């Protein structure tokens, strides 16, 4: 049996509304960022392949570093979708009093998927950092050629 109404106070409902606002903002930025990363990844891959002939080790590391960009874009896209779904469930929880627990469970299920992808995002970002390190060591002339801003900057998803 589930609880139809979780008696949140006005302050708590306001806090959840603020959370929903940030989640919506983040989802929109994620969609824009996903498009940016996918485009950057596609455009950066072509010159990266050409570099392999000149400097095999550095070129491969650079290509793999660039290959992480479209992966990050795809992860951002999925994260945005799950953030929107979690936001929808939380919104339904505070706006109605008929199935609060059910909405809450849905929200946490979506957030679980969101954090799963977030983990993947940070992992791919860290892998990109390792390849970046290899590029810095073996092909320093290419180290500053990352298109756009660095995906790992500020330690989180851009």
């Amino acid at each position: 049996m589930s609880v139809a109404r979780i008696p949140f106070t006005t302050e708590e409902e306001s806090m959840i509304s603020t959370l929903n606002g940030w989640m919506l903002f983040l989802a929109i930025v994620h969609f824009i960022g996903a498009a940016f990363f996918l485009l950057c990844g596609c455009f950066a891959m072509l010159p990266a392949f050409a570099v392999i002939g000149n400097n095999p080790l550095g070129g491969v590391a650079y290509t793999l570093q660039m290959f992480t960009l479209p992966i990050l874009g795809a992860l951002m896209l999925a994260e945005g979708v799950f953030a929107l779904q979690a936001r929808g469930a939380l919104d339904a929880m505070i706006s109605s009093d008929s199935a609060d627990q059910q909405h809450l469970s849905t929200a946490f299920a979506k957030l679980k998927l969101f954090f799963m992808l977030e983990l993947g995002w940070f992992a791919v970002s860290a892998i990109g950092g390792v390849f970046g390190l290899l590029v810095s060591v073996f092909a320093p002339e290419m180290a500053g050629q990352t298109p756009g801003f660095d995906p790992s900057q500020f330690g989180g998803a851009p």
Partner: protein
Amino acid sequence: MSFGQSGGGGFGQPPSGGGGFGQPPSGGGGFGQPPSGGGGFGQPPSGGGGPPGGGGGLGHIPFTPEDDANLTGMARFARFAAVAAIVAGVFQLLTQLVAALMTDSPAAGFAGQLCFGAIGLGVTGLLAFFLFQVGKAVDLVVTTDGADQMHLVESLRALKGYFMVKGILYILAFFLFCTCFAMAMMFGMAAFSALR
């Protein structure tokens, strides 16, 4: 199911006197008069059903095993993401430092990259802190039964902090990008006009 507060359910105890039919009178056949008090359930006690008042919130939210698995999984992945965020931040810092050392003027580049990397690592640490808070509060919702709603609100508050920090970072990144773009345009135009 319990709500951790008194005043709970909608049905009270049945009044004494119980069932609908009384004992048959001795000596005769058929049915006697039912005793006063009637059958079924009595009136609910004062305080009635619905959520408990007093602002204490629900002590126990009866999550199903599937919900519990989702909550536990979410807490686990939030913690993993926190660790991964810190690792990614450290890798990024190392990459920047190595890249700075490979330049022609390592001393100047090293200080700048170290400063920039340290800020990045600090922000990563803040995000990780919020993620750990989320994980801890959600775990308390699942493992304890005293103040589920309070822990739930704590987890949502930590989530708000996490999403807010990320949102502010996005805004700052956007302004940084715009500033860099504007400066590049200005320098480009200046160089172009100097060439003419």
